[in-house]
């Protein structure tokens, strides 16, 4: 199994790489969209804003390569934080923009969803299991994981929701739809719970 981390130019690839490398030697950071074809699974990290990230992905030809990888080749992808949010149909951060459309749903601010707590949401929060999945194998319900976000994915179909979390309001903290997995939290920064989830993705 060959695993790639997509580096499209923004954010912190190193901590994702470090945590995966501790689990497998078969992980590589790729910066060229064509390279993706040689891999079996990819991780799409993300920081920055929805609109600007989609822009960069499109400009650098990542967008179509990732779409083919996921939709045509049906290979596994793990989106982390903004990486997961980009799987949606539409995002409303900065301005309205279209995402990968792997998941029918929208990305909206926690504020607009009714959250009245301090934002961004930063820190450890528990994940409430909504369904069984191999991705959550050996992870306990209500484990704490690390979040950093102001926006949240709202999927139309609730059956893809793996876990919810609560910050004044309930929001989706992880999803799974066939070969598409996403976590709003940062498994690479979530100590043993995060490590387990990454391990489960590697073994998926």
């Amino acid at each position: 199994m060959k695993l790639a981390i997509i580096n499209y130019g923004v954010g912190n690839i190193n901590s994702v790489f470090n945590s995966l490398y501790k689990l497998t030697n078969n992980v590589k950071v790729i910066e060229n969209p064509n390279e993706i074809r040689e891999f079996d699974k990819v991780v799409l990290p993300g920081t920055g804003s929805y609109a600007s990230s989609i822009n960069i992905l499109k400009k650098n030809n990542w967008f179509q390569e990732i779409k083919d990888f996921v939709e045509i080749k049906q290979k596994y992808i793990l989106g982390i934080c903004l990486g997961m949010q980009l799987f949606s149909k539409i995002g409303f951060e900065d301005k309205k923009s279209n995402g990968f459309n792997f998941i029918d749903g929208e990305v909206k601010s926690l504020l607009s969803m009714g959250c009245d707590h301090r934002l961004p949401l930063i820190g450890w929060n528990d994940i409430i299991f909504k369904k069984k999945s191999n991705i959550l194998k050996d992870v306990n319900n209500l484990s704490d994981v690390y979040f950093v976000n102001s926006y949240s994915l709202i999927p139309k179909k609730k059956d893809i929701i793996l876990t919810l979390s609560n910050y004044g309001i309930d929001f989706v903290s992880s999803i799974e739809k066939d070969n598409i997995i996403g976590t709003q939290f940062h498994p690479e920064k979530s100590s043993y719970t995060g490590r387990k989830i990454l391990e489960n993705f590697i073994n998926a």
Partner: protein
Amino acid sequence: MLKKRIIPTLLYNNISLVKGKNFDNWRSVGSPITSMKIYNLRDVDEIYFAFIKNKDSLFDFEFLKHLSLECDVPLTIGGGIRSLMDVDEILKSGADKISVNTSALENPNFVKEIVNKYGSQQVVLSVDFKRINNELYCFSNSGKKQTNVKLIDWIIEAQKLKVGEIILCSIDFDGTMKGFDLDALKKIIKHVEIPIIISGGAGSKEDILEVFKLDVSAVSISSLFHFTEITPKEIKDFLNTNNIPVRL
């Protein structure tokens, strides 16, 4: 429910970790990599690592890579960040967030540049303040230089610059271990909508409980861990029995 965070703070002078009192009288308190390993084993919530260095000296990015490799929880790096290039390299070296103080006071636009490039969530504004004639003023250059910027004004402005968090450190209370500067905190807390990390003065578990009764997101702790036997776990157990949500 979101948990209150306990953040050990490590100050590094490019030779060893140090800890002072009122930003002065520095004592050496051990090696950075060893300390990082220990905190990581103890599964703290996050680590704040700050350089106390000459503004012209350069960051050792290889050292930072080594350091971040030892850290399984979020790592914030601060101290002497002057340019967007510093930020790029520090984040590439494995840090999760950066903190700015002096460079932000000198040029608020710099904060905007970082936020535009990386997003609010990776930018922590570090604010060191002190009482002068009963007014709270911001200090720059590791507490060495008084500015004419009032604490409240700066905090309001910084939120407009869209920093993600604010770490507030009372120079008067730093290293004294006599409890946090609650008076100052109460004055400013209503002006802050983003997460607040409070720093300076933690001397007991009770001090930390007291501060968490206010709407504070995290505490930064240095002397208490360097100079006493109290562990992060002990603090968390104590907070937990007092109904403060923590990650156990």
